[in-house]
Each structure stands twice: as structure tokens, then as C-alpha cells.
């Protein structure tokens, strides 16, 4: 095997492995690694910072601590075997990637027409439950980065009640592995809707109190209003989606713009805010919690009780899919997630590529927002951008 040496590649000498090597060291400058082991960092990543006082002069994002090569692994597995892998692309929100894998291959194999009605509804249900639980977690995480402990305790507890519902429906709390080719893996359990309703009521009951702790809190307002503003002109250029975009006042949402599953039949509004700062992004998330609850209630109402939940599948050990390529997208809690799927007529995926919002949020946007930022705001900024390292590294 020929060994590829990137050190011989053009451009390598411009920036070597340690990006500051060779530059003159400013005596007032402090270099600081924020992460990979720091409670304020969002997952297993790090930001290398150059500071003057507590002001960040510049910084570089480093990922790779969590790289497991999912895309490569999926190229070497049968289609069905890819499906326990994709949920790990975003730990907190596995259902979006599961749906994207299923729908992309269904589209290429022609199975998409066979997905039964109830399967579509159940998919919509878990996708929206998933958005709700992640948004709750991020709301808590947002104030947690500022040293407030009560709100995260509350939101994490509320999220855990939702995880109970996931456990009941899918057999797993975190890695649900529920949405699969042709539909979903299991039917609703008896009484599931009532228990989920109870959880929704419980969340709804707590929301005003959470508002007092977060959005109505003077401390939170002081810390977030006008902080880490993402300029509006970056929106299209950098492909910003999700709450970060909607906090700029732009009402774009994949669920409405590129209708999929049962979203066209559901009544929901696209939540926006103005200011494009951390506060605005938190406002959007707060509004989306209420909106998700509203959507889930509709789904429970409208979902058929009877009927198959999964299409008849071919033998998954020998399934082959004709050659083709596609792009499918879905709205995760962070914004547009998409799968580029390329098949070549064999029984494995030729190439799969996850397009996630964190990819630009955590690298391109974050690095450009760092100069001039106070180091105390860094964690809050990263959470408000919802950077998720497994999604960047895949």
C-alpha cells in the first residue's frame, strides 16, 4: 500500500501542524486550549485560543477527538447494518439521521411509495419528540454555561420524562434505532399517547417558571443581549439554518419549505426572533418548545390507530439498490440536516455524507466570531450555535 504523506502536499508549509509555530510570540498573549476536557465545551472538541487579558484575539477550532469514520464504515456494510451507525452521528438527536438514512435509500430503491401511513405518522412523532427533547436540553445547557444550575436541572428532568416515552416506544433511551427502511420498527404501545400527553402537560406546566429563570432573568438578559451577534449577511453565504437563522428574523424551516413526512398536514408556525444574539436564539428555542408540544398533540390526535407501521421489506441481507444519488433534508433542532446518498447498484452504500448545521457553525462561524469576544461568553456562544462535534467529524 502506498503511504500518503500529507506533509508533501502543497500548502502544508503554510500552516504546519501547530498553527502558531514560527510566528512571533507576543509577550502579552496567552495561548489557551479550551477543551477537549472542559465542562464548558460542547462535547469532545476544543478551541485553541490566543488571549489578551480576557479578550480573545483569535482562535481555531479543533475536532477529531470523536472521529469514528461513520461514513467510511457505512460504505463497508449492508444497508440494514448502517442503521445502528447513523444514530451516533448526533448523540442527542438520533432520529433525524435515522430518518435521513431511511428516506434517502427508500428514495433510491423505490421503497418510499410503500411506507405505510401509520409508519409516516410514527416517524413524524419521534422526529418531533426528538426536537423537543434536544431543545429542552439546549435551553438548560444555555444557562448552565453561565453558571446557573436550577434551570438545567429542570430541563434535563423534563427531557428525561420524554426519554421514558422513547424507551417505551423504541426500547432505548438515547439511541432509539427506531426509524428504519419502510417505516418504523414497532407499533405504539397501549396507552402510550396518554402517558406522552401527561409528560407534555408536565413540560407545559413548568415553562412559565423556566421563563422566569431564563428569559425573564435580568442576569441572563445582561449576559446574552447583544452578545455573539451573527451578522445577517452571513445567512445565505454560509448556509445558516435552524434557530441561528430564525433568530435573525428569517422565517425559514425545512419542515415547511421542503415538506416531508406528515408536516404538510400539521399546523405549526415558524418561530422567529430579532437581534441574532444569544438571547434571540434562546427566545426561538423557547418558542419552539411550545410549538413542538403543539405539533405532538396534533400528531397524537391525527395518527391512525390501526394499520401496518412498516412496509414489507426484501431480504435485508441481500438487498441491492440501483445506482443513483440524492440529497434528502430534514429539520433537526439545530437546523437543516441532510444526507447526500450515492449508491452504485451493489448491496452497500457507495458514499454517504452528512450535512449538518454544526459543520459551519462550529468552524467557519465560530472562528470568525472569536476575535474580540470575552472568554466568559465562549461557552454560551457555542451552545447557542448548538455545535455538535460528532456531526462535524462523523
Amino acid at each position, binding site marked *: 500500500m502506498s*503511504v500518503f504523506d500529507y506533509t508533501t*502536499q502543497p500548502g*502544508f508549509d503554510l*500552516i504546519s501542524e501547530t498553527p502558531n509555530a514560527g510566528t512571533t510570540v507576543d509577550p502579552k498573549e496567552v495561548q489557551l486550549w479550551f477543551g477537549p476536557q472542559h465542562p464548558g465545551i460542547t462535547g469532545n472538541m476544543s478551541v485553541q485560543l490566543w488571549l489578551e487579558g480576557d479578550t480573545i484575539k483569535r482562535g481555531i477550532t479543533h475536532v*477529531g477527538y470523536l472521529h469514528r469514520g461513520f461514513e467510511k464504515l457505512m460504505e463497508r456494510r449492508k444497508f440494514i447494518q448502517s442503521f445502528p451507525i447513523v444514530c451516533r452521528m448526533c448523540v442527542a438527536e438520533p432520529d433525524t439521521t435515522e430518518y435521513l438514512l431511511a428516506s434517502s435509500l427508500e428514495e433510491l430503491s423505490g421503497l418510499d411509495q410503500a411506507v405505510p401511513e401509520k409508519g409516516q405518522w410514527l416517524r413524524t412523532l419521534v422526529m418531533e419528540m426528538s426536537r423537543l427533547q434536544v431543545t429542552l436540553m439546549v435551553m438548560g445547557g444555555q444557562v448552565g454555561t453561565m453558571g446557573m444550575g436550577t434551570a438545567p436541572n429542570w430541563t434535563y428532568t423534563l427531557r428525561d420524562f420524554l426519554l421514558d416515552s422513547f424507551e417505551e416506544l423504541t426500547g432505548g433511551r438515547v439511541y432509539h434505532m427506531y426509524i428504519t427502511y419502510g417505516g418504523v420498527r414497532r407499533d405504539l404501545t397501549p396507552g402510550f399517547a396518554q402517558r406522552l400527553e401527561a409528560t407534555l402537560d408536565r413540560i407545559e406546566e413548568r415553562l412559565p417558571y423556566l421563563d422566569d429563570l431564563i428569559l425573564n432573568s435580568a442576569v441572563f438578559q445582561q449576559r446574552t443581549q447583544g452578545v455573539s451577534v451573527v451578522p445577517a449577511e452571513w445567512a*445565505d453565504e*454560509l448556509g445558516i439554518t435552524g434557530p441561528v437563522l430564525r433568530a435573525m428574523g428569517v422565517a425559514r424551516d425545512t419542515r415547511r419549505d421542503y415538506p416531508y413526512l406528515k408536516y404538510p398536514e400539521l399546523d405549526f408556525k415558524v418561530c422567529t426572533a430579532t437581534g441574532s444574539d444569544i438571547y434571540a436564539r434562546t427566545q426561538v428555542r423557547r418558542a419552539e418548545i411550545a410549538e413542538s408540544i403543539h405539533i405532538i398533540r396534533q400528531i397524537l390526535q391525527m395518527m391512525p390507530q390501526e394499520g401496518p407501521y412498516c412496509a414489507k421489506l426484501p431480504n435485508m441481507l441481500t438487498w441491492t439498490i440501483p445506482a443513483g444519488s*440524492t440529497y434528502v433534508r430534514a429539520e433537526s433542532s439545530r437546523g437543516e440536516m441532510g444526507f447526500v446518498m450515492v449508491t452504485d447498484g451493489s448491496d452497500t452504500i457507495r458514499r454517504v455524507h452528512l450535512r449538518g448545521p454544526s459543520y459551519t457553525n462550529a468552524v467557519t462561524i465560530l472562528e470568525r466570531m472569536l476575535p474580540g469576544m470575552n472568554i466568559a461568553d465562549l461557552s454560551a456562544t457555542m451552545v447557542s450555535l448548538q455545535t455538535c462535534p460528532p456531526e462535524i467529524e462523523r
Partner: protein
Amino acid sequence: MFDINHGNLDDSPDVGQEIVRRIHDRFGDFPARFQKADLVRLDVPQKDIIPVLSWLRTETPFVQLTHLTAVDWLEDGQFELMYLVTAPDLMVSLHLCVRLDRAKAEAESVFNLWLQAETYEQEINEMFGIHFPGSPRQGVPFILEGWRDMPPMRRDFDTVAYCDRTHPVRPGREHQDSRVYVGRKFGEKGYLK
């Protein structure tokens, strides 16, 4: 955005058809596949890709680079770059696919059209060994710090051999394939071969 020759794209009943027609008029008759309401795939020759992308970026509502990725077609001796360019207000995406010579593995950067292309091109450079001259982070490790092997997303990189080397199976594991085991146990043999 107003195009003096064709009128406003936003007014067109089928944006996908219309943008493909304009690309055909302007750049050449590239094969197009209308995959679904919001996705059109266009196979563009390498020499035309940058003009097409610049035109889309500057003169049409297709202003957003949603993603950029590569596919290794080892059998054909080619790499394929896939640019997904989206018109967020019209809700249509173009999948522009370009085949490159695998031996040369070089493509023009789109960094000066889209800022975030630097990360996409950095990753493709690291994972596929495709070089984008002029892109700012070529050769800078992104995910694989200290990697000295072949770019791992190339098809000829043997994942199984790499795993066996770096993560050996724990001792004492022994698997009997039922097909082989049954055949052996029940005296299966061939009388012709």
C-alpha cells in the same frame, strides 16, 4: 434576481426546469436529471464547473452552498465532486456533479465564492487527497491529526486491515459460519470439482 435575457426566475412556474434551461443556454447541454420537486442533478464537465458556480452565486438566487463532498469512483479512475447549491427563497437545490481525474486529483477552489468552502475543501483534501489550490487550509489536518496513511475515504483504503492492525479482536473469539460448519459436519463434498 432579474436576468435581462430571461426575466425573473422567481416568476417561473418550475424553477428547476427554468434554471437548467438557462444553464444549458449559457454553458452547454449538460445532462440533467430532475429527481424531485426540490432537487435537480446536473453532470458538469470540469472546465465548466467554476463558471457555472460563479454565475449561480452572483447572478441567480442560488446563493447558498449547502454542502460539498467527494465520491471515489475507483473503478473509473475518477473522483466526483458534488456541489449542492440552493436557492433558499425558491426552495430548489442543484446538485452539480463533476468528475475529476483520480490520478491528478486536483480541482479549483470555490473558497472565494463561499467562505465555508474552506472547511469542506480542507476535509476533502484530508479524506480523499484531492487538492484545491488556493484554498486556505489545504494540508492542514482537520480531523486526522498525525495521520500518515493514505487518505482514508479513498476506496482503496482497507478499513478492515486497518482495524485488524489497530484494534485487534480480543483473544478467544472463534466464529463458525453455519454454512461452512454444516457442510463440513454432514460430509458435504463435490464430486465434479
